């Protein structure tokens, strides 16, 4: 695979749109990353922590009662929700913080929406005894109070962001401002396949373990490749993590599920791949929700982790070359998805992952009989119970 090019471009997407202050650092980071991805000792250490600390490999679980209900589809769940900290985010935070250590950085910062990436970052920072500040939108702090408390318990400082829309996008602005200011000692752990090059590639690399395992596990169970891959897309790290290993398997159809919020035809959604246009935000070019003057629009989703107006550049590329299809599921359908998985399988999915589950019934209608699908169950729903109980 030749993407991205050496400047981090996936055709016209991606790149490095950052202030000059960060340019040299990003070049250094890229150099270190390129070296470490081939460094046996680093890989050993990374695998060790994934296995012994985070709990990999995660199960690929055949959801029998759910499949029976859907009739045409045999559904396998990739159980990232079973990982330490409760989501796939820890795959990436372990990788990045191991890099930070090698670069001699003493302080970790991160942005977080749902709090899952924040918790995963705070966890690994604690594991390695590093100072940790997490930027989080004031509105998200409100709706994800459990995760806020978890981060604090883990020794991180949670910095409320009150600028702009007070959600993930503004938390990322604030984290970048901190980074530009403290660039010498601080490592910015970006939580998604977004941001300036090399972050989209680096996060993809650390999350691609999801798809590699799933491919192997599925082959063991079914002696073939799956027909469909299904995952939610906010910034797009769990979906890219699942998709990447299957890129060259042309018969495997990939479906990314964006958050349609209150509906794609309202302005209250988080679906840039469905309703956005090309733009530049947070260091890279990708599909973006913006108005006619190029001002970034505020996204909306019931899932704080999907509430982002941009998306990772590689997803824009996948969409352009038609390697993946991107659909959208609204708040109500996501809640229905959550309930469906609770009642058929006894698993409470995160509100984010519930968007992928929420698309299953539609997929079942168009799928041929005896089709198979791997759904990335990116996180568990404990964190959402509090805020969801007022809605359901």
């Amino acid at each position, binding site marked *: 695979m030749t993407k991205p090019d050496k400047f981090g471009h996936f055709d016209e997407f991606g790149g490095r749109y*950052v202030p000059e202050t960060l340019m040299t650092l990003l070049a250094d980071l890229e150099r270190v990353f390129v070296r470490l991805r081939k460094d046996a000792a680093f890989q050993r250490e990374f695998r060790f922590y994934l296995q012994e600390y985070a709990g990999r490999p995660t199960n690929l679980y055949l959801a029998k009662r759910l499949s029976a209900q859907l009739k045409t589809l045999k559904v396998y769940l990739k159980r990232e929700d079973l990982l330490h900290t409760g989501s796939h985010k820890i795959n990436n935070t372990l990788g990045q913080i191991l890099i930070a250590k090698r670069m001699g950085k003493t302080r970790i910062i991160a942005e977080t929406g749902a709090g899952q990436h924040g918790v995963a970052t705070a966890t690994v920072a604690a594991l390695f005894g590093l100072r940790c500040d997490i930027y989080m939108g004031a509105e998200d702090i409100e709706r994800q109070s459990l995760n806020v408390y978890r981060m604090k318990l883990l020794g991180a400082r949670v910095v409320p962001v009150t600028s*702009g829309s007070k959600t993930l996008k503004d938390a990322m602005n604030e984290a*970048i401002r901190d980074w530009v200011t403290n660039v010498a000692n601080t490592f910015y752990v970006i939580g998604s396949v977004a941001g300036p090059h090399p972050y989209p590639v680096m996060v993809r690399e650390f999350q691609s373990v999801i798809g590699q395992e799933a491919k192997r596990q599925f082959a063991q169970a079914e002696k073939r490749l799956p027909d469909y891959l299904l995952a939610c897309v906010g910034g797009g790290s769990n979906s890219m993590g699942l998709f990447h290993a299957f890129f060259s398997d042309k018969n495997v159809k990939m479906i990314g599920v964006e958050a349609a919020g209150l509906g794609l035809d309202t302005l209250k959604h988080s679906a840039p791949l469905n309703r956005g246009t090309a*733009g530049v935000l947070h260091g890279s070019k990708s599909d973006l929700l913006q108005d006619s*003057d190029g001002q970034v629009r505020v996204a909306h989703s019931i899932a704080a982790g999907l509430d982002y107006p941009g998306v990772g550049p590689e997803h824009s590329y996948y969409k352009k070359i038609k390697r993946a299809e991107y659909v959208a599921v609204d708040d109500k359908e996501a809640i229905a998805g959550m309930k469906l998985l609770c009642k058929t399988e006894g698993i409470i999915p995160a509100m984010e992952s519930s968007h992928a589950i929420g698309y299953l019934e539609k997929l079942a209608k168009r799928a041929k009989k005896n089709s198979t699908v791997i759904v990335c169950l990116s996180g568990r729903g404990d964190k959402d119970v509090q805020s969801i109980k007022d809605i359901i």
Partner: protein
Amino acid sequence: MNRIDQKFSQLKRNKKKAFIAFITAGDPDLTTTEKLVLAFERSGVDIVELGVPFSDPLADGPTIQAASQRAIAQGVTLKKILALVKRLRATTELPICLMTYYNPVFHFGEKEFVAQAVRAGVDGLIIPDLPPEEAKTLIAQARRVNLATIFFLAPTTDFTRVALINKSSTGFIYYVSVAGVTGARTALPKALRAALKAFQRKSTKPICVGFGISTPAQVREIARYADGVIVGSAIVKEILKNKNKKNLVACVAKFVRSLSRYV
């Protein structure tokens, strides 16, 4: 030669340094911005930077963030700012740069934007989130119509990048005094002079220093060794402070004069 180059050669002949003033266009409103620019011309300002408000100004500190939000709330757009420059050109030859994030430009369309900017009378572009590596097409468009493209140097810039930044920049180079976002600071880094000197040896363009400069002493100090001094947040704060006064323009112009006299 565009107005920026003319200005620097004129300053050089007079053995003077440039005083560059930044304000956010449309803060508190576009009419006031227009009056401020004209007042600045009489207050020792050599070049004006008009900030284009953006929803996500990640290189800016709280002062300019807030000014941006005020301007957006006024309904200020890139189009309206270009119209403002056009109006200003009826009465002034003061060099005007637009300082904008890249997305509004990209969304406008680089080619169309460059054409309209030049037609309006804009002299230079400063785009803090667009490094030269991503600016090849914009530079090519701008060169054709003699629109200056001003890129940045920072304390963290590796020397291997200086040649590219120098080659990509026309008009002047913007040296960021300190790793960080815009905003007034009480103290500037001690190593500033030495760092700047090292870059000056490798560059052929005027280098002006901005970020964090707010006091007469800082202006005087930097004017001794840089080709120009850029003041932004301190002026934006002054606008906010006087926003309810009838003589806002005169108050801000007086403040600007109190700094510009030291270059």
